[in-house]
């Protein structure tokens, strides 16, 4: 344990990349814990940014993990989601990490739904800002093309560039910088293999370490 993140109580919220053992709820959560942070992680499959502000039900699973305890997964088809306010009240974070982008990018649609994405993102970032919390937004990785998720590298690039301009006052971590298009194989075009999630988790943690070292994130 290097202790770089000691003093940080981190709340991680995300989409389906946070809802299965071996995904970021395992790898990123472990990486941050090993650096001294207290970490509480939550994932809601299919949720958009606004769904973390206004309560929703999720149809493809939700998961939570607290400190060094195991991941708890709920695959009920109409599971009640959490709200951001609820999680802040429970876990008292001083840093929020949002991992989100794939659920909102409009993969498979000809037009990029920018006005809608901006409002979804803003709904969440303004709620985080209202609580005066530091935050970091992690954008989606490249994935693979040609599957039922209809991810294309062009759209992932467009979404990453758009999020970079839209997530302030959160800092933005661009996951596309961690690999080349298609370099990390996936199981379905969107969700990475176990190796991929270890790489992605390690790279996100490394980017966070840089933000802390540069004073952009205060412990």
């Amino acid at each position, binding site marked *: 344990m290097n202790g770089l993140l000691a003093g940080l109580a981190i709340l991680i919220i995300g989409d*389906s990349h946070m809802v299965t053992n071996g995904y970021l709820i395992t790898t990123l959560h472990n990486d941050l814990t090993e650096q001294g942070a207290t970490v509480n992680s939550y994932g809601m*499959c*299919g*949720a*958009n940014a*606004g*769904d973390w502000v*206004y309560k*929703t*039900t*999720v*149809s*493809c699973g939700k998961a939570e993990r607290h400190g060094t305890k195991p991941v708890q997964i709920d695959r009920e*088809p*109409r599971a009640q989601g959490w709200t951001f306010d609820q999680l802040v009240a429970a876990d008292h974070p001083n840093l929020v990490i949002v991992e989100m982008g*794939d*659920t*909102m*990018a*409009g*993969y*498979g*649609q000809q*037009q*990029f*739904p*920018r*006005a*809608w*994405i*901006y*409002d*979804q*993102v*803003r*709904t969440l*970032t*303004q709620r985080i800002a209202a609580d005066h919390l530091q935050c970091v937004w992690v954008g989606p990785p490249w994935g693979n093309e040609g*599957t*039922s*998720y*209809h991810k294309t590298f062009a759209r992932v690039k467009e979404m990453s560039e*758009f999020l970079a*301009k*839209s*997530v*302030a*006052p959160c800092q933005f971590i661009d996951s596309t910088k961690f690999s080349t298009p298609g370099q990390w194989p996936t199981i*379905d075009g969107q969700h990475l293999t176990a190796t991929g999630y270890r790489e992605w988790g390690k790279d996100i943690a490394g980017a966070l370490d840089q933000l802390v070292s540069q004073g952009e994130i205060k412990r």
Partner: protein
Amino acid sequence: MSSIARPVFVLALCAALGVAATSNVRAAEGRLYPSGPPNGVAYLRFANLSAQPVKVKSAGGTLTLTTDGGHRVGEYDPVTPGSELTGTVDVGGKTAPIKLKLTQNELLTVVVTTGGDGAPLVTLVGDTPTEFNAQKAALALYNLDKGCKEATLEAGDGHAAVISGVAPDGVKRRLVNAVNVALAVACGAGGPGAVAKLGQMDAGERYSIFLYAAGAGLQALAVHDEMALLRP
């Protein structure tokens, strides 16, 4: 900054969004959920620039816009692009029909004014913004004065042009630093103007300034744009 009354009128003018809630999504084979709103989104609002209250009616409900400052302009409601939306506007018992079809990502304002006989006049003013920046404020100037060939939005004591060349029934938009600066609208450089009271802008937010003619001369209405959230 003007406050906006939340209208009861919701998403209607007839078009069903045709979008399933997160909990009712039937995923394509192998795919857990769609990405973004499946049918795309456009945004629609109404603005009352007349001297009387305006009632907008559709099969889905009624929206009333008063003549009280920021309450003249409703919030943007998400609608399905490509669907025909119909209704009526009523000013003082006189009505005019509405028939609209929006394109994806379009932000459309239906502006209601009145003619010499008091009958409502409906003007559609829309654009499809491409620039979004959470570190800047977005300002849009709407020109609803047919006698004003080129509307201008000016800032500060030096009357620096922030937005210029807006033709009648047109709109132009610009990202600016989020500051508190005196704004005014005018017709062309050096023309008569009207103060647009906006106050401190917030980074990431959007604002609209309407230039219109009423009574003695140019009028300006400045509002903070409100968006109703679509949750597909």
